[in-house]
């Protein structure tokens, strides 16, 4: 038999893998809910790479509140994670850096209920400390003599950058189209590019090595982060508790500290 389309193959593979996943998940579910409402077992969260610091902190907090619970994270690009979820990876929670990759999961019928937007992120210009090239705004991305990095249009930050440049009417001349936002940021930190278009949260994460310049036109391309509990979640109670924590005032405060915005 030759499998003709990627779609059919994906569904087949997902069916096979989730079959195995359910069997493996048995142990985790066994200790999932204690009699006193405390949570146990293992909680597996798939989250966009930009959430690494905030989610790790929230996970530790949940573990402290529920001593029987172990929270495991997989941080990666949203598209990679969405592919893994549709291929049957045994995850409880999926937090995407854009609605498009969440749609991949909801379209496959794997989201339990409607995904909730829990935060958002906006593009900002990152320049090396001291701003050696005197970058002041988006218009500088049209200066041929500067070395400039923008994300590739295939990845979310690049798609957002295209929108922002279009809104601003800037004919950008980047020297490199980076494979993800952290790669663009690294080049700013090393001083190898004069400016890059990254997320506000990346500028905060980079600390003193990088300065941020707000971009008014970026307001048109705000990136929303949806989160959902997965239908195949081996530990749905803990998954729900984690999502509630993210949406709580505490979770929102942690996100704000990292440079994220309210949804």
């Amino acid at each position: 038999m030759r499998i003709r389309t990627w779609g059919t193959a994906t569904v087949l593979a997902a069916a096979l893998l989730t079959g195995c996943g359910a069997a493996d998940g048995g142990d985790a579910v066994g200790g999932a809910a204690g009699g006193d409402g405390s949570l146990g077992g293992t909680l597996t969260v798939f989250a966009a790479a930009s959430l690494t610091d905030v989610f790790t902190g929230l996970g530790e907090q949940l573990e402290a509140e529920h001593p029987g619970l172990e929270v495991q994270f997989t941080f990666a690009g949203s598209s990679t994670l969405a592919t893994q979820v549709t291929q049957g990876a045994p995850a409880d929670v999926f937090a995407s850096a854009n609605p498009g990759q969440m749609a991949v999961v909801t379209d496959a019928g794997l989201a339990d209920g409607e995904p909730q937007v829990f935060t958002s992120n906006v593009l900002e210009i990152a320049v090396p400390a001291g701003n050696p090239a005197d970058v002041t705004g988006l218009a500088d991305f049209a200066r041929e003599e500067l070395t400039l990095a923008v994300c590739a249009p295939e990845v979310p930050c690049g798609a957002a950058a295209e929108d922002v440049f279009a809104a601003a009417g800037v004919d950008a001349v980047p020297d490199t189209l980076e494979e993800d936002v952290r790669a663009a940021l690294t080049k700013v930190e090393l001083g190898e590019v004069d400016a890059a278009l990254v997320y506000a949260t990346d500028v905060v994460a980079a600390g003193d090595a990088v300065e941020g310049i707000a971009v008014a036109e970026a307001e048109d391309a705000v990136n929303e982060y949806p989160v959902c509990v997965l239908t195949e979640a081996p530990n749905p109670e803990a998954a729900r508790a984690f999502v509630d924590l993210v949406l709580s005032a505490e979770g929102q405060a942690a996100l704000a500290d990292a440079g994220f915005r309210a949804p």
Partner: protein
Amino acid sequence: MPLPLLVPAVVAVAFLVLPLVGLVVRTPWSDLGPQLTSPGVGEALRLSLVSATLATAVSLVLGVPLAWVLARSRIRGRGVLRALVTVPLVLPPVVGGVALFLVLGRQGIVGRWLDEAFGLTIPFTTTAVVIAETFVAMPFLVISVEGALRAADARYEEAAATLGADRWTTFRRVTLPMVAPGVAAGAVLCWARALGEFGATITFAGNFPGTTQTMPLAVYLALQRDPESAIVLSLVLLAVSLATLLLLRGRWLGRAGAAP
């Protein structure tokens, strides 16, 4: 054939070949034509072939003498030297890319000087692609050639020396022809590694169509948006590299391949 050899060999073949079969099975053949003729693909393929070939040429010019030093000279600290020059084999390529920045980047130790003295900046150029590929691939050539030199009978070189040849003549007229199959095998390995290079290239050279976007970079980015086209691109790279290797094998390694 003895079973203890045959069974693991069959497992090895299955392990190495099945993922390729997977790619072929999943290929959307109807999309093959449009993908192949799209200008971006041709550009990335041409850039890949040119930069991998240049990286192999640089590796040959610098790597063969290095292999000779490692195999034949009596300098002290040879073991340490060998370990040092094979570091790129174990270094994650992305780290290699960052390391290249620290030396050849605008702010790098050597790069800063190049920039000030000549206005020359290397990152984000095709030159950077060749440098990144050479950094990662040259050790494969050095190891292969050094192995060939060690296996070669040094008595021929001694005989040449007793007949009055100096060391350079001996190297050119005796040593090099003797280890030619090893050099060819090393060059093929080096070329293949350079062709597939991803991490160091995307870090040090960046990614821009026509300048620095080689096939592996194009495949990776296509995978982010459209997995089917990523499979087609992979298959193109696979077909071209296999065809090249088979062609060269017949040509260069004909004799070595026919050995019993």
